[in-house]
């Protein structure tokens, strides 16, 4: 199953990009090497991109080589950071938008991005400033920016101290020298412990050096968050993976045989330093082959994740949805049938890719599709498009692909921006770690979100059609029926989802309902859908009324999906985001404007 997926992905990948055709070092192989970071075994490429996003706020990086600006693979950038090359230190990756900060450190006002080398003299100053900020008051914009910069610098420095302890000596030389002196040092240490003294001065010096090695490696094993070395006896047990410091400490055991992965990595640093590209690539191939053999349960999934990361299929989907939107709009304008056909088949293809990518994510993470805000955006889009396509099959009113493309684009661009804020595949907090509830409660509630957004979308189309040209009553009635069906659908699923959430809460917190903001948000959707259905039943609203309420439903759903997270309170306090607040408000204002326009320009008509 996984193999088939990898095959499909590699195929699609190569049909889309030829990114590595001209490179000398095989960074694509390096990108597939597994590392353990933040509790998750991941390909080097994923780790590299995540670090780039955290520091540069983008998953790509460009560098000026021979006067030309070329984009370099994330793996290459990270490898150079880990091995302390001077190129990586000169990469302008620290974005400083805040003029005050630039002026304060007398940085050039003509540029916005600065390199580590440029910022290095100010690091202590920046860190001490951040430490002096009050923790009780909310921070000013300047303080927030300063804090963010300090965080990025800290992460960068910690990366430099993740793999290699010192950069004044080549890691390969360091390891080989250490291997030689550790056994002798250990015997000297034992002798000293037994007799209380060492007679030769040479031995004394050796012992001091041995002690320093020990201290340094202890410290290094505490600092480094990056576990790169599996245990030789049981590489699949992630608990036994170690970082460089702990790996070197293991040599204090007389019988310990050097970890072959450590030797591979040490050789890589040597060949990299010597610009010996052939040997570098050969070593990488052997290292990858080693992992292929020693991690039978993880390797395929890691390969899949590598191609998934490099290809970034959701981004491709987003671009395709824009293309479809253009095609449909052109069709509406000029009425060429082939444009509609292009849009149709392109939409079906994109939806297929969207689906495939969702499944790939599920395989990679071994989780249901929705585990965080990012994946909920992807899934909400998927659900609403699926419903849209289903309705297009039933009603055939040539709106399906238009709405799909808008919904697809909007949800995926939200996802794209969420992905720039945190690792989208990060491990889950303890209370969420339950695949059963993630696949029941979270899925149903997200189905509800998707449905309400689709209803709002159809209603928006209704307003647009009626404003642009007089729509027939028949046409409006059809749209009305679509909205009604979708509202029933979302009422059903948001209710079930809310109840399942209640049951989960009862199971894990001991109470079914606690008026927590996220719970209230879900309840609001249920009540609002009930209001629409009862207003229709009571005869308060005809076609227009239901449609306008459905548009207002967009605001309700957006509030319960994102808004409550921005309040920053409650038990569900995970996945917070403040920057999106303005966007949310803009979205709400647009919805209100549409409602007002619809109310003023469309005549209310009874359903029958």
């Amino acid at each position, binding site marked *: 199953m996984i193999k088939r997926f990898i095959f499909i992905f590699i195929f699609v990948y190569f049909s889309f990009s030829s990114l590595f055709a001209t490179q000398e070092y095989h960074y694509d192989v390096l990108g597939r090497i597994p590392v353990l970071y933040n509790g998750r075994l991941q390909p080097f490429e994923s780790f590299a991109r995540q670090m780039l996003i955290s520091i540069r706020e983008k998953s790509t990086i460009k560098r000026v080589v021979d006067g030309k600006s070329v984009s370099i693979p994330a793996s290459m950038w990270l490898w150079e950071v880990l091995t302390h090359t001077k190129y990586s230190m000169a990469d302008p990756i620290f974005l400083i938008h805040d003029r005050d900060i630039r002026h304060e450190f007398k940085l050039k006002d003509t540029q916005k991005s600065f390199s580590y080398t440029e910022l290095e003299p100010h690091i202590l100053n920046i860190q001490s400033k951040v430490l002096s900020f009050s923790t009780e008051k909310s921070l000013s914009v300047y303080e927030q920016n300063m804090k963010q910069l300090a965080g990025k610098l800290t992460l960068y420095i910690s990366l430099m101290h993740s793999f290699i302890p010192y950069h004044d000596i080549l890691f390969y030389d360091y390891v080989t020298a250490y291997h030689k002196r550790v056994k002798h040092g250990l015997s000297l240490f034992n002798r000293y412990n037994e007799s209380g003294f060492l007679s030769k001065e040479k031995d004394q010096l050796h012992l001091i050096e041995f002690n320093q090695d020990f201290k340094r490696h202890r410290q290094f094993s505490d600092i480094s968050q990056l576990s790169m070395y599996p245990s030789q006896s049981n590489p699949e047990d992630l608990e036994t993976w170690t970082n460089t410091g702990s790996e070197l400490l293991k040599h204090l055991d007389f019988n310990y045989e050097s970890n072959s992965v450590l030797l591979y990595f040490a050789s890589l640093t040597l060949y990299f330093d010597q610009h010996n590209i052939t040997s570098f690539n050969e070593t990488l191939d052997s290292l990858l082959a080693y992992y292929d053999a020693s991690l039978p349960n993880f390797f395929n999934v890691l390969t899949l994740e590598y191609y998934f990361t490099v290809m970034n299929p959701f981004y491709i989907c987003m671009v395709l949805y824009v293309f479809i939107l253009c095609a449909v709009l052109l069709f509406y304008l000029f009425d060429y049938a082939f444009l509609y056909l292009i849009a149709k088949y392109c939409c079906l293809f994109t939806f297929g890719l969207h689906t495939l990518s969702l499944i790939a994510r599920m395989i990679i993470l071994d989780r249901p599709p929705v585990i965080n805000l990012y994946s909920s955006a992807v899934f909400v889009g998927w659900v609403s498009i699926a419903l849209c396509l289903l309705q297009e099959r039933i009603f055939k009113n040539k709106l399906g692909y238009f709405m799909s493309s808008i919904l697809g684009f909007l949800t995926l661009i939200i996802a794209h921006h969420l992905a720039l804020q945190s690792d989208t595949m990060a491990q889950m907090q303890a209370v969420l770690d339950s695949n059963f509830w993630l696949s029941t409660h979270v899925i149903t509630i997200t189905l509800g979100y998707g449905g309400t957004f689709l209803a709002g979308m159809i209603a928006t189309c209704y307003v647009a059609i009626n404003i642009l040209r007089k729509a027939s009553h028949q046409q409006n009635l059809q749209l009305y029926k679509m909205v009604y069906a979708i509202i029933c659908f979302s009422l059903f699923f948001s209710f079930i989802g809310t*109840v399942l959430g209640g049951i989960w809460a009862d199971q894990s*917190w001991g109470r079914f309902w606690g008026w927590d903001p996220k719970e209230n948000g879900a309840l609001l959707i249920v009540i609002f859908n009930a209001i629409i259905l009862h207003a229709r039943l009571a005869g308060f609203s005809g076609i227009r009324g239901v449609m306008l309420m459905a548009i207002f439903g967009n605001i309700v759903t957006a509030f319960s999906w994102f808004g409550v997270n921005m309040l920053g309170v409650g038990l569900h306090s995970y996945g917070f985001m403040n920057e999106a607040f303005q966007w949310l408000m803009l979205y709400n204002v647009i919805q209100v404007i549409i409602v007002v326009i619809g109310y003023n320009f469309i005549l209310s008509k009874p359903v029958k």
Partner: protein
Amino acid sequence: MISRFLRFFSSIQLALFCFIALFIIVLIGTFMQIDHGIYYVQKVYFHSLFITIPIKGIPIPVFFGGTLIGTVLVINLTLSTILNIKFSYKNIGLILIHFGFIVLLLGGGLSSCVVTESQVYMEENDTTFFSEDLYETELVIIDASFSRYDYIIAVPIVDLKKKPIIESDVLPFSIKVHSFYDNAQLSLSNLDQGVASMGIGKNLHAKEIPLFTADDQKNNPTALLSFYNTDFVSDTMLVSLDINGTQKLYINDKLYYLQIRPKRLYFPFQLTLKSFDHDVYPGSNIPKNYSSLVTIQAYDDSPDRDVLIYMNHPLRYGYYTFYQASFGEDVPSSVLQVVYNKSWYFPYVSSLIIALGMGIHFFVHLIAFLKKRRL
């Protein structure tokens, strides 16, 4: 007259009105949690007849509270189901939905009255037989003169607030309340210039401060009391939650200990924390799981048993539910939230009925819709 009354209370307009009112209070109740704790918000917005704003100390109702809306909705749902919905096979789903909601609302109302939430803090190898309420407190009077047990009388803190004099057959003396503050700040005074004339209050000032509403701040109920019986009147004593430990009180040369402490909920069993574990994902600091291994020793004949309480897996024992809430940083210790709820099955039953009803209702309509299209 009656028919008009029935028509009003069974009308769909009233239902719609209730929904909108509910929508509004849920929205306000959510926003209010930015500044106030969840306990306060529940009490003021959801578990109340009216939402009130105090103007010069007099609470003025400004909107309907959750309890009132819920009650009206129950009446409305019941009457409209009986009077307005035809009993036919097509409406089975609808009837089930409405019936389910009646049960859900009744259950919700009931549970807001009968549920008690409390916490237990235990270090490893600690044994306990009670939990402490997070919000409510009580004044305890302890008579330690018995050899094998203490005789403890607990006075609910509301009594101190509402009654100027507390008299009871179980009390060995009467209590006079000179002053009571829901929340007070204690500060040191000069020697013997405090508010009370005996106990630690001799050296303390007590200043009334507004009630805290955030969840992370604890109110400090404080009272100035004196004690008397037929032939004895004592000095005044300051009791307060912030005063740790007990204060001594001699009445006719008999010694009593007094203290305000969190209200205790006694279990019909003993609970021992054998071990607490805190797992992280490999190579990271991200918590993966917290778990407490506890032993339950019931006071009846049932045998002892060991239970592992961990994330998403609470311990249910009778109507008690123990779940992993937090843990201590310094020593291996665990904080268990204890919920005593006799109505926990209400939401389960009602949700099942509603979900079934919705399923049937929408399915019937979908079939009808598809049939119509095919014709």
